[in-house]
């Protein structure tokens, strides 16, 4: 409770005119769900208005960590992963634990168990795509009825189906010497590179246009650079920096349902293992990008046209996801 109140106070009184302006714009634009450490020290799912108000827990387990929450396209359900509290929450492995489907307010959870890695909703809100070594399966939930299997074409984690259902994106091998972000056409079964190939790239998600992905552009090996938020289309078309900050690694990029805002997380340390105290959620306007989060001279030189920071900080959290839907049972009476 104390933690919740502290977060609420922080987000409601920002002393930040730019953040306050964004907060007023997004207040009524649905809900954001995310993972954060609750009062008992384990990771739970939380939900809030996009301005950070009306924040409450969706799950309240003590022996499990809940991660990777994603709303179904119709806003009626969520999927997430549940792992033993003894297992550290990790950016690269959370989607390999037990898949759970529930109502969007966290009620009626159905545990589907293991073997359904990196699940992502289909556009019908009735199926999910899941990843395993032998391919990508489309299954109905909660029945687990297999609908379709396609080759995974090197995708190894963070699988996300496009809003139109025609493509998948994910972190993939085989597109360069390291892991990259690829876009897999489900009809042709061809995968095309979206990110640059000569660095580590990961955590992709779709923009509402079902053509571009927003992702974390990681470091070139041995350089130890900070991960930045980028957008690209198939073949690297329209590839551009969205948000960069010298003092933070940027992961978990996601768009608002209308494409006008971008969500992401800022981490002091690179991920891997998610250090809650140093991983926070922020929100920016798409129209304000490219943006630099600080005054680093090297980044300014690299991105001379980037705007200065106009960001709404939403406090500690990780892997946020946004729905336009109003969620019953999550609004303060």
């Amino acid at each position: 409770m104390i933690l919740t109140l502290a977060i609420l106070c922080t987000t409601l009184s920002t002393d930040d005119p730019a953040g306050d302006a964004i907060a007023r714009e997004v207040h009524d634009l649905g809900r954001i769900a995310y993972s954060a450490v609750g009062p008992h020290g384990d990771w739970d799912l939380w939900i809030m208005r996009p301005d950070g108000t009306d924040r409450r827990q969706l799950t309240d387990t003590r022996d499990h960590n809940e991660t990777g929450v994603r709303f179904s396209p119709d806003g009626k359900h969520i999927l997430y992963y549940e792992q033993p509290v003894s297992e550290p929450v990790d950016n690269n492995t959370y989607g390999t634990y037990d898949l759970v489907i529930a109502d969007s307010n966290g009620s009626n959870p159905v545990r589907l168990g293991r073997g359904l890695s990196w699940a992502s909703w289909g556009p019908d809100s009735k199926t999910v795509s899941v990843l395993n070594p032998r391919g990508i399966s489309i299954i109905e939930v909660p029945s687990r009825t297999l609908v379709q299997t396609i080759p995974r074409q090197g995708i190894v984690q963070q699988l996300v189906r496009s809003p139109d259902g025609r493509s998948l994106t994910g972190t993939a091998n085989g597109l360069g010497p390291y892991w990259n972000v690829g876009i897999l056409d489900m009809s042709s079964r061809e995968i095309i590179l979206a990110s640059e190939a000569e660095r580590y790239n990961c955590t992709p998600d779709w923009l509402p246009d079902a053509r571009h992905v927003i992702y974390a552009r990681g470091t070139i090996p041995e350089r130890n650079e900070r991960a930045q938020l980028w957008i690209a289309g198939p073949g690297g078309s329209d590839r551009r920096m969205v948000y960069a900050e010298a003092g933070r690694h940027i992961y978990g990029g996601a768009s608002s349902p209308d494409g006008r805002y971008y969500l992401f997380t800022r981490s002091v340390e690179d991920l891997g293992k998610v250090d809650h105290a140093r991983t926070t959620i922020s929100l920016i306007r798409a129209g304000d990008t490219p943006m630099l989060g600080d005054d680093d001279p090297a980044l300014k030189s690299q991105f001379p046209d980037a705007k200065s920071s106009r960001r709404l900080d939403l406090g500690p959290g990780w892997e946020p996801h946004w729905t336009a839907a109003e969620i019953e049972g999550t609004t303060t009476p």
Partner: protein
Amino acid sequence: MSRHTRYALLASIILVAAGCGGNPPPAGVPAGAVSSTPTAEDPKLQSLGTVEVNARLVEIPDGAIFERDLYHYAGILKYEVVDVHRGDLKPGDIIYVGHYDPWKPRAEAADRQVTEVGGNLTRFEPGQLHHMALETPLEDFYLGAVVDKYFGKRGGAAYWAAWTNAAD
């Protein structure tokens, strides 16, 4: 007991033994390629994978093996086959093998994500002879990140190293 359970149990036993310190290296065996178990008697080499070879590690490209706690990955390494115990390879063949977290001693490489890897090799060095149990294609047996410094330079499927012992 399922095959998976059997492997996991054996791997656990090996990990416990490694955690207790194991035996000192035999005299004359170079550090970094130490075997505390006679290679020919290691049942894992005969039971794991569909291919079993002795192969010489041709080289280690720059950046193919690095230690970074954040990332678990398989590093692709180039081998020349010397002896074939199982499978369709022949001596002289060049193969590319993915080793999970190659900066770790093989006995410490298994984790929650990848349970069925191991062996007694403690460090990869060019020119070493390795006795390996392999699967192919790598993608069918490993769902994780790959560092492939041979990207665009090699053909054919890579192999997945299930078990790797020193054989020099």
